[in-house]
């Protein structure tokens, strides 16, 4: 299915997704957007797993399983994070990350 597509292309896509995710996490002030950025980071890693699995051990499926595992964890993590964000919104009527500094020194 991926015949003729070199590994580098996968890596380029994954790297781009990774740094876009990092950038989003660092600069966007909305908590939901930050969560989405995090999902980008996770998925870039998934792409790497699948690509390397196919390249290095075509007859094994560990990379695939790990990807599925990461997706499951990401889903759980997203549900917890969204629950926290909803609670924050109920309390502060705001989900701006810069307003959340109650726990500082």
């Amino acid at each position: 299915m991926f015949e003729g597509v070199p590994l580098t292309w996968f890596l380029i896509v994954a790297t781009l997704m990774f740094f876009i995710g990092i950038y989003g996490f660092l600069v966007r002030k909305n908590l939901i957007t930050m969560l989405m950025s995090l999902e980008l980071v996770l998925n870039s890693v998934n792409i790497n797993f699948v690509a390397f699995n196919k390249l290095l051990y075509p007859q094994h499926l560990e990379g695939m399983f790990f990807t599925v595992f990461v997706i499951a964890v990401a889903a759980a993590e997203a549900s917890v994070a969204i629950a926290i964000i909803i609670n924050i919104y109920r309390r502060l009527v705001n989900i701006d990350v810069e307003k959340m500094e109650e726990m500082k020194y």
Partner: protein
Amino acid sequence: MINFSYTIWIVLIPLIFFVLIGFFGNRFKPVVSGIVGTSGLFISMALSFYTAYQYFFVMPKVGDTFQKIIGYNAVWLRFTEKLHIDLGVLLDPISVMMLIVITTVSFMVHLYSIGYMKGEKGFERYFSFLSLFSFSMLGLVIATNIFQMYIFWELVGVSSYLLIGFYYTKDSAVAASKKAFVVTRFADLGFLIGILILSFTTGTFDFITLTDPHGTAITQGSGIMFLGLSTMTWSMIFVFMGGAGKSAMFPLHIWLPDAMEGPTPVSALIHAATMVVAGVYLVARMFPIYHFSAPVALDVVMYVGAFSSIFAAVIACTQFDIKRVLAYSTISQIGMMIFALGVSGYGESGLGFMASMFHLFTHAFFKSLLFLGAGAIIHAVHSNYMNEMGGLRKHLPITHITFLIACLAIAGIPPLSGFFSKDEILAASHEKNMVIYILGMIISALTAFYMFRLYFSIFWGKQQEYHHTPHEAPKVMTIPLMLLSLGAIFTGFLPFASLVTSDGKPLMTHIEPAVAIPAVLVCLLGALIAMIFYQKETNLPEKISKALGGAYQAAYRKFYIDELYLFITKKIIFDHVSRPIAWFDRHIVDGSMNGISYITNEVSARIKRFQSGQLQQYAWVFVAGAVALALAFIYLWTN
């Protein structure tokens, strides 16, 4: 072989009664505690007399020698097969004799205290402490090994502390009890060091092994030399330091006169008859070691005893508090017992040993009688000072007669008990050391003088006006007085030399006229001078004391020993040792701790700004760190 295992009950009964009275005494009327405690001691006394009868007269002697018998033994702490600490009962002539002395005097004092302490707050407490003391003292004398002795040695110290401080609302009593405890505890430190050196050198705690003249401890004990003396000598000197502390020998005597703050029967029991002779008993118990392995230590014992004796006798002549006179007299008499041990030899030439034990025995009776008599007088007059007394012979007839008997006994007038024992001491020192003998004569004369000074100023002298007419003490107090005066009269006739000797073999003694006659003459002289001075009201004593001037003042102020101690402790130790140490503690030790916490505090105040609460700031730092690490790894790998 007779089974002596019942002797353990002599010791255990007072312990049981201590617990009973201590925990349950306050549920009943106070007098119940008194009667229960007294009957407990009566059982102990009866058992002691039975033991003595069995030991001295029923048990067969081996080769004409009294054997040392372990009546009961229990291994208490087992460290290794060789090193274990036992608790048990050792019976030999001196411990059996001490059982008699302690239980008898303790019983008399218990009986007397029912009357004397009547109506006092803490009556039950008093009796439980008396039982505790009896238990500890009995445990001390029957100790089978030096470690058991040390345990009970500390226990008598504690009971003495508790009883001196019985009137704990009185500042002077509290101070006196602390002084007694600290001074004797300081001396016990020496005792402990002595025990450690001794057991290290000989490899045993056991008295029978230690004191066997043919045993390994004596024949090959002292090897290593230190500062010109063998380790054995050093250990014996240290052990004697403990004994000197308990027996109030110079310069550790300062606690005994102050200990008179306690109730008078306590003074009679602890500070006259039993606990203060523990030092004598200790030296007697270790006597073969002193004699064979550490003759230098025995000389130390002799000189310390002789000096304390004359020193205390001189002070006793100048004091006005009757209990203090008796306290100094006790120091003086114990000094005599100690130097008697010091001049003694072993076996055939062990006259001094036997004389010392004899004097210990008779002294217990007449000195406790004197104290109990003094208690009856104080009870009647409500004063301790003899210059506030006078002409009491009409008011207190029984006390008067018994006190007179005790004075005659302690002064050594024949045929009362003190004469025999003192005569043996003088005879023993006459054989060995003329200087000590002459000192002994002077002490005898001084003893007679201060005792009759006491007697005449209390019972004769000028008639005093009293707030209310002094009345004789109740029967429960006078009966012990009468019983003890029987002891003071007749104990001198006991065949002591054939019962209690250094090696267990009987000793041939006789009254040596060349010693006895001068001794009686100087005693009579001392008594006569006291009679001239104090029987009628005269101004002779003031004239003499004025004429003596500074010497009299020095003796009256107890040769400034207390002041010297205060100077050493306050001016030297407190100012030059304790204060610098306290400064070091406050500034260096505490300072470094405070400094550490101060620095932590300051630094954390500075760096807490990093905790800004800005999530993305943390993320920036994290990413930057990760990138920096990645770059560093790449750099290292590529090179």
